[in-house]
């Protein structure tokens, strides 16, 4: 009964995360928007798990572990970039641009 609304909310949340990634330039804010997208996917998993069995909730567990690992490594990378360039604005970080 809550499946349809939950999937709609998660679609809207995921889109907001994509908006944030496409709109902002601050690397840390972009990173938080990626977390927002991961959470939207978690909501989908939980909503479907309610009727299809507990495996969906287990996947949320794994997504959380991956998100924690990603946050630790990603923030370390941002820290290293900030030491090197003195900014986290992605406009100034274009070493890989041809």
């Amino acid at each position, binding site marked *: 009964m809550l499946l349809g609304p939950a999937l709609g909310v998660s679609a809207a949340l995921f889109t907001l995360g994509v908006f944030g990634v496409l709109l902002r330039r*601050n690397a840390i804010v972009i990173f938080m928007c990626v977390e927002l997208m991961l959470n939207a996917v978690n909501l989908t998993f939980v909503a479907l798990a309610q009727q299809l069995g507990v495996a969906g909730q287990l996947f949320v567990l794994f997504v959380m572990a991956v998100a924690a690992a990603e946050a630790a490594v990603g923030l370390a990378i941002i820290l290293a970039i900030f030491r090197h360039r003195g900014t986290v604005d992605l406009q100034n970080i274009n070493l890989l641009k041809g």
Partner: protein
Amino acid sequence: MSGALVLFWVFAGLALASALACITRRSPVASALWLVVTLFALAALFVLLDAQFIAVLQLLVYAGAIMVLFLFVIMLLNLGRPGPMDVKGPVGVGTAFLLGGVLLFQLWILRRATLPSSIQLVARLQQEHGFVAAIAQPLFDTYLIPFEITSLLLLAALVGAVVLAKRRL
């Protein structure tokens, strides 16, 4: 409307509004705090969707550990004060709205997904075994190998974070 549905829309609205605030605030600290509000609202939604254990983990791992890490890095780099707005130019905004609109349209169709409402596997399992055991039993049985691989992943992340963030080893 039943009580659960009213509560669902209250917390869904809170989650969406604070997610919007998170992507529009100028200061990264304000963004991070709005994201915490989103995570709390999502934990409430998880409870309404029969995932009590996941909701507790959401509060502990996401709203607790991960967001503290974010705030710590923001304050370590001294990015707390709001600078000039860092939104991209008109071309970037146009592209974002176009791509986001198409994506929302595609994902919105998911709302039509229906399952026979008679199956309520999780609620039955939780009544038989309890909230934690319903998750723990398959986790240490069917999904034991992915669970062990997760520990390897966390170890790799730990080592990687230290190597990347340390000035000289």
